């Protein structure tokens, strides 16, 4: 600190420079305020200060991120599976490493302020951030400071960030949505039904998806990517299904249907009961057919079994 409290700077072969002056107050406020400098900058002390050469400032950042591994090995290994690490290993040096998201000297606890998580991703994914900010989730987060809504890391995870364009990722979408939408404690207070997940999972698409997931690897790959939550509701641009946005959702629906059911007419989406249980007001035809069988099947079974028992009884008596 004797030196780094004063204006010093590092220079790189590329001509870039980095200030070596440490902001003491941000260091004291960080979660690492109990650590000493050489815990991270190992091999360095006031006595021993080897000269190191880096081609660019980015090279230095990438190399420094390796230091986190010594303590945070679990997180470090998780990032090895991420799309960011894949991009890095393919030569894209701009792919983010620990320091890019967490900072260096001023590392703070990340889960305190959820909006900050989204803001971190915004630095590279600005386009998606803007779309998310306008969605029902983003809007609640930024305008109402709602801490229940999902931020980027809730679906994409924080470290194991997978390529979201894969079939594998797509098939897990209902799991991600059901983390909140099947949890009464979270969505109940907004008047949202937790039945949405079950009604999807027990319908044609949900059942098909279930088997596609079981079949993976061993059996033939699915013919078409199965419709999941995001196909009708959107991904980053998820809108409310009630209120002024409802018509938008409905109009998008038929377009999505037509991706697989090419000749689907305009009223085709009506064949999906929109997560509602059939009732007298909603889908009365389905309700009545169901009701008739609910009565008829037990009556039939009891009748047949009684006939059989009577028949056996008579046979035994006659002998």
């Amino acid at each position, binding site marked *: 600190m004797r030196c780094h409290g004063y204006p010093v700077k590092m220079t790189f072969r590329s001509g870039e420079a980095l200030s070596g002056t440490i902001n003491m107050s941000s260091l004291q406020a960080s979660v690492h305020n109990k650590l000493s400098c050489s815990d991270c900058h190992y091999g360095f002390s006031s006595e021993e200060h080897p000269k190191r050469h880096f081609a660019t400032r980015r090279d230095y950042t990438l190399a420094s991120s390796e230091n986190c591994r010594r303590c945070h090995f679990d997180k470090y290994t998780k990032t090895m599976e991420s799309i960011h690490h894949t991009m890095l290993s393919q030569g894209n040096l701009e792919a983010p490493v620990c320091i890019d998201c967490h900072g260096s000297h001023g590392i703070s606890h990340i889960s305190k302020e959820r909006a900050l998580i989204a803001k971190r991703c915004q630095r590279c994914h600005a386009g998606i951030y803007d779309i998310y900010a306008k969605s029902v989730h983003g809007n609640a987060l930024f305008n109402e400071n709602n801490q229940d809504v999902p931020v980027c890391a809730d679906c994409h995870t924080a470290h194991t960030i997978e390529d979201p364009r894969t079939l594998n990722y797509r098939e897990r979408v209902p799991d991600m949505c059901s983390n909140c939408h099947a949890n009464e404690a979270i969505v109940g207070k907004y008047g949202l039904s937790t039945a949405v997940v079950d009604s999807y999972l027990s319908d044609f698409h949900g*059942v098909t998806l279930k088997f596609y997931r079981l079949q993976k690897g061993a059996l033939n790959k699915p013919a078409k990517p199965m419709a999941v939550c995001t196909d009708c509701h959107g991904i980053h641009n998820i809108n409310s299904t009630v209120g002024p946005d409802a018509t938008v959702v409905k109009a998008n629906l038929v377009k999505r249907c037509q991706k697989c*059911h090419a000749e689907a007419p305009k*009223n*085709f989406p*009506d064949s999906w009961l929109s997560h509602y249980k059939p009732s007298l007001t909603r889908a009365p035809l389905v309700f009545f*057919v169901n009701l008739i*069988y609910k009565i008829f099947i037990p009556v*039939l079974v009891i009748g047949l079994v009684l006939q059989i028992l009577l028949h056996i*009884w008579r046979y035994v008596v006659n002998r």
Partner: protein
Amino acid sequence: MAFSTVIQEDRVRRFSPGRSVEHLAHVITFVVLVCTGLSQRFYSLDISQWIILHLGGIDNVRLIHRFAGVIFSFEVITHLTVAAIGIVYKKWQPSMVITKKDFTDVVHNIRYYLGIENSPTRGGRYTYKQKFEYWGILTGVLMMMLTGVILWFPAVVTKFLPGEIIPAAKVLHTNEALVVFLIIAIWHVYSAIFSPEVFPLDTSIFTGYISKSRMLREHPDELAEMEEKPLEDIPTSS
């Protein structure tokens, strides 16, 4: 379709070989339809998952189910056409048609089982039990043929009909399938296998012959009719 010997010493010709083949075809297609269909309805059961995964996945199971459905529909249409031609042109007796006697037979037989009547009902070519089973399954199968086509081509159907038809057809198809399955699994299997009168198996549909003693007990009216009339007038099919 008269047989050389309809009534023999101790047995009676009951079904033509064509009927035996028809029955076997129904058995095979029905088993395929039940395995591939009910496993979709009860998809969360382990046995269903085992069936679906061993048949090559859900897409394959649906494909097999649909084509088994087409074959079954073809069998049903053939059966009805043969019956219609037989009744109209060959003057077969419409012996499967439910008459007033069948309803009184139900009451009579239940009274007999309970010990109120002294003798069971006198069955004709088909007893009331066989007739109700036949029509129960036939109407169920016709409904499933119709709803099966709707479910196969939902996008085409909704061009002409409201969207709600699709989930309604699904509910009807799966429930009616369960009804037909239960009729077969409970009633038919009991009557043809476990009933003490035929155990271990009622072989008449496979061999075409039924013993005279059973004929006398279960279809006395038909036997009486056969013995009075000349052979060529005796109907051999419904």
